[in-house]
C-alpha cells in the first residue's frame, strides 16, 4: 500500500528563482530564507519519497481566466515549466505518474470532488521553486503529481473545503495498492499582499498562529471565510489554502520535524514546515 511519509509546506515567491539564478543563497538578505532548507533535504534523504503530490496555485501560466477550475490535477507523465514573463530561468521537466494520478482522480471524484483533469499542463514557479529548494541540482529523483487550487479569482474554495480535499487525497493515496512512498507539498503564503493601498501588508502574529495550528489544531484555519483570510493574511497570503490541503492529507496528530519563518523575502513573510504523521 502507498504511504504518506509527511508534508512539506513552503512559500513560493518568484524572486527565489532570481536569487537561485544569481547564486545569492549566502547573501545576507537571502541567507535566513535559504538556511531553512538543508534540514528539509536531510529529511528527504532519510524518508526517500518516490512521488511528490504538490499542491499549489497557478499564476497565469497554465490557466488563464477564460477557464478557471477551482481544483485541477495533472494526469500526465511529464510536466514542463515555461516563461512566465518576469525573467526567471526555466527549470528541467518533471516526471509525472499518470497511473497514480488517475487513481487519485477516480477516488476524489467518487468522494464528490470534481477536479479538472489535465493531460497537458505547464507548471509555474509555485511548483518549480519549492522543488528546486528541495533538490538544488534539479535532477528530480521523484515523480510528481500537480494539484492546483484556485486562489486567484473569487469565489475561492473555503479553507474547510480545502482541508476536506486534503483528507480525501490522503485516503486516495492510502488505497493505492502499490508501495509508493509519497510526500505531499503545499506551497504559497504566508502573509503578503502585492496589490492596492494595503500592499506590503504582513501579519506575523497570524502567520505564527497558523503555523502552530498546522501542528496542534489542523482545522483551525477552517473557521475563517476566504475573505477573512484575505483580511488576516493579505490578498496573496490566502495561498495558505494550499498548506491547508497538504495538512489535510496527514492524520490529526503529527510530529513537527522542522520549521522556519522569516520576514521578508520580496514582499512576503516566508514560512517552511516539515510534518510527519505520528504513529
Amino acid at each position: 500500500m502507498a504511504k504518506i511519509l509527511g508534508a512539506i509546506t513552503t512559500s513560493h515567491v518568484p524572486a527565489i528563482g532570481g536569487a537561485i539564478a544569481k547564486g545569492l543563497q549566502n547573501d545576507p538578505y537571502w541567507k535566513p530564507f535559504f538556511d531553512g532548507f538543508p534540514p528539509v533535504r536531510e529529511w528527504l534523504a532519510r524518508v526517500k519519497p518516490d512521488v511528490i503530490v504538490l499542491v499549489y496555485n497557478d499564476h497565469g501560466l497554465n490557466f488563464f481566466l477564460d477557464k478557471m477550475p477551482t481544483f485541477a490535477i495533472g494526469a500526465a507523465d511529464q510536466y514542463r515549466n515555461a516563461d512566465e514573463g518576469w525573467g526567471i530561468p526555466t527549470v528541467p521537466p518533471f516526471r509525472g505518474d499518470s497511473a497514480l494520478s488517475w487513481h487519485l482522480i477516480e477516488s476524489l471524484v467518487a468522494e464528490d470532488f470534481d477536479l479538472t483533469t489535465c493531460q497537458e499542463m505547464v507548471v509555474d514557479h509555485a511548483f518549480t521553486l519549492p522543488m528546486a529548494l528541495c533538490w538544488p541540482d534539479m535532477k528530480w529523483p521523484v515523480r510528481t503529481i500537480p494539484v492546483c487550487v484556485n486562489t486567484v479569482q473569487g469565489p475561492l474554495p473555503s479553507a474547510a473545503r480545502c482541508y476536506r480535499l486534503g483528507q480525501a487525497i490522503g485516503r486516495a493515496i492510502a488505497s493505492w495498492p502499490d508501495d509508493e512512498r509519497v510526500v505531499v507539498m503545499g506551497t504559497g503564503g504566508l502573509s503578503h499582499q502585492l496589490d492596492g493601498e494595503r500592499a506590503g501588508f504582513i501579519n506575523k502574529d497570524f502567520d505564527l498562529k497558523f503555523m502552530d495550528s498546522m501542528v496542534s489544531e489542523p482545522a483551525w484555519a477552517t473557521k475563517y471565510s476566504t475573505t477573512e483570510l484575505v483580511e488576516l493574511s493579505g490578498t496573496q497570503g490566502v495561498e495558505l489554502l494550499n498548506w491547508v490541503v497538504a495538512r489535510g492529507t496527514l492524520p490529526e496528530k503529527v510530529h513537527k520535524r522542522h520549521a522556519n519563518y522569516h520576514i521578508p523575502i520580496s514582499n512576503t513573510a516566508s514560512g517552511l514546515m516539515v510534518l510527519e504523521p505520528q504513529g
Partner: protein
Amino acid sequence: MPSSRRQPVPGTTIFDGEQARKGYALNKMCYSFNDAANRRAFVADEDAYCAKYGLNPQQREAIRNRNVLQLIEAGGNAYYLAKFAGIFGLDMQDIGAQQTGLTKDEFKAKLLAAGR
C-alpha cells in the same frame, strides 16, 4: 478606498467575478506577455498592441500611465499585472512603493519592520 460589503477589506480589491468581468481584456493582454515575442511586440507598438486586445479607454490610460492602482481599478489582477511590470524590469517592491506612495527604500523598510 472605502470598504463595502463586496469589498470589505480597506485598501484591498478582492479579485472577484465583477473584477474578472471588468478586467478581462486587460488581463488577457497581460497573460500574452508570458511570450517573449509578445513582450517585444508591445514595446514596439504599444497602441497597436492594446487595440488588438480591445482595451477600453480606462484600461488604455492606466497602461499608458504605468499606474498600478489605476490598473486594479480597471479590473487588473495582481498576478497578471506582474507580467506587465516584468516588461519594464520592475519588481514587487517597485510596485508596492508606487501603490503606497512611498519611496522604494521606505517600502522595503516597512517590510523589514513587519518582522520585528
